[in-house]
């Protein structure tokens, strides 16, 4: 198991280098000029300024040479400096990523808890009205466009009912939590500031519901169909024949086996969220990786684009590895000897 994990991590680095090459080449193929995207009209008209800008960012060199320089820095752990912000890309990512992680974790909590709950109810009350209602919820979760759902949620729960605060991570006047992890919920708990905690949590709920709704739909459908499949196996019949109560049959025998494939769905959903959901982050003014990626892409900020892409690719690899390890723990059939 350890050897397997080490090999997977080693492969991850090979993959990331491949990703960096692809992203570097593709973003250079875009028929747009980073000079035009970053310099003002007057600066553009001065050839000297343009030449200095190009030289400073290495844009005057051939593309492969540019990549070679980038790769050398990358291998030393240096992601370069963002053209747009002038800050090291790594520092930018560290600033934006925690917001996305925090939001994604809450979205996943909602998705997993309600997805499994609805899935179980749906399977137990198969073809009954409850199943139909749950089916409606999960299908709309998968099909409602997130930008529209975000606006709807804000309109109803912020503007009309006033139950939840509007966009942003915190109230405008609230101080940024100290603690330095960038996860405001964690920071406010660590510093014992519970007013701030409730502020951070209440800001999280609406975007987390919007983001979690999609994955919840997937988890619900998957849980339902797996549970129905497992429920028709003989070991479930055997458990009933032994005199086990129906609830215990489902919880102890059926659910564990039914949830194995759900792990994959949930993991992929989590990866998806960690990549940053541009629309939702934009609408909720959430300073996350989606917004950073959007701004980097529109200004052709090559180092930042590469940095975001590498981060997203690394998320996928790491989460897939975790899924595989988790599989080994809960499903003895997939254990490596």
């Amino acid at each position, binding site marked *: 198991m350890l050897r397997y994990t080490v090999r997977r991590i080693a492969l991850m680095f090979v993959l990331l280098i491949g990703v960096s090459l692809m992203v570097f080449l593709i973003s250079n193929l875009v028929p747009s000029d980073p000079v035009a995207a970053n310099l003002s009209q007057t600066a553009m008209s001065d050839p000297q300024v343009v030449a200095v800008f190009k030289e400073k960012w290495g844009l005057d060199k051939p593309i492969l040479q540019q990549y070679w320089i980038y790769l050398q820095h990358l291998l030393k752990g240096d992601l370069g400096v963002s053209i747009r912000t002038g800050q090291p890309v790594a520092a930018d990512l560290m600033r934006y990523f925690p917001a996305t992680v925090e939001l994604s974790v809450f979205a996943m909590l909602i998705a997993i808890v309600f997805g499994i709950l609805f899935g179980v109810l749906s399977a137990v009350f198969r073809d009954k009205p409850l199943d139909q209602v749950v089916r409606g919820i999960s299908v709309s979760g998968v099909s409602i466009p997130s930008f529209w759902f975000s606006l709807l949620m804000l309109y109803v729960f912020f503007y009309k009912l006033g139950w939840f605060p509007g966009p942003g991570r915190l109230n405008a006047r609230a101080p940024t939590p100290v603690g330095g992890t960038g996860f405001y919920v964690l920071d406010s708990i660590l510093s014992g500031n519970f007013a701030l905690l409730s502020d951070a949590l209440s800001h999280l709920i609406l975007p987390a519901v919007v983001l979690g709704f999609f994955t919840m739909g997937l988890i619900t459908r998957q849980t339902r169909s797996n549970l129905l499949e497992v429920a028709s196996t003989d070991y479930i019949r055997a458990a009933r*024949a032994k005199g086990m109560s129906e609830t215990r049959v489902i919880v102890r025998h059926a659910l564990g086996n039914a949830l194995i494939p759900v792990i994959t769905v949930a993991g992929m959903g989590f990866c998806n969220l960690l990549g940053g959901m541009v629309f939702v982050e934009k609408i909720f003014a959430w300073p996350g990786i989606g917004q950073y990626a959007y701004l980097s892409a529109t200004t052709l900020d090559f180092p930042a684009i590469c940095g975001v892409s590498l981060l997203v690719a690394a998320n996928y690899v790491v989460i897939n590895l975790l899924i595989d390890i988790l599989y080994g723990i809960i499903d003895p059939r997939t254990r490596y000897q």
Partner: protein
Amino acid sequence: MEALVEAKQVKQHFTVKVKGRKLLLKAVDGVSLSIYKGETFGLVGESGCGKSTFGKALLRLYALTAGRVLFHSADISALKGAALKAFRREAQMIFQDPSSCLNPRRRIEDILTEPYAIHRRFTPVEQKRKAAELCDMVGLSKTHLSRYPHEMSGGQKQRVGIARALALNPQLIVCDEPLSALDVSIQAQVINLLEDLQREFSLTYLFISHNLCVVKHCCQRVGVMYLGRVVELAQADELYERPLHPYTRALISAIPSAEGRAGDGQRREILTGDVPSPLSPPPGCSFHTRCPAVTEICRREQPPFTEVSPAHFVGCHLYHS
């Protein structure tokens, strides 16, 4: 002979949706039979004739649609709660597919101690000792206790299934095609094991199978099912030597013989057509669509199930005039 289980007009119907229409599937449609204490009662028939469903209905794994099941003369068809749980101790089941009858996430020890845990018997330490005894009883070694089902062969898994059924010392075991997923050599071992256990614990078996040779070998009495009904019921020797119902005759003539000399024995009767769908069984005698001896009355009236010679029952118009 004292009856351990008596089924009285047991019906088990299911509603199924076919292309959006709700249809009634009469899986078991009025089966009456008694299983005597200590015997092995064979139930044979083609796939889909309702024999497995009947076995499960006897164990109250379904709620009966109609009819009654008596166990030691007490009606168990409406038991609930603690009384049903107490009945569960007396009647257990062995399943067809050894690979799906064991929870893949449980070790054999957990599988074998669970019956005790459900019925709150023994301390955890004693439960483990009991599990080891069960392993021994069915010819597995104690090293198997720490294994997972996927680490065992089909025959070994079936032994675990048998051990699990034995855990609570039941009187009745429904064996639902316990051999059909096993290799022939393993089948013989499992039959011997079942016979040994029957002698040792004076068990009663309901042996469901489509393998007529096996049923002939290990059953004292045999019932033949067709489309949810028992069409013939007799002592095993009698049934195999003097089959009366045209369906039974066809089944028995289809048994391959080891000698296989030309012109030996009876003429082989080959049935044409398929079993009609139980969703729309034919009127009258359900076998009339395939019966070589079909007459006018068969298409109209369902034949009564009558005793034509001592302990030999048949439901066919040929023997009822």
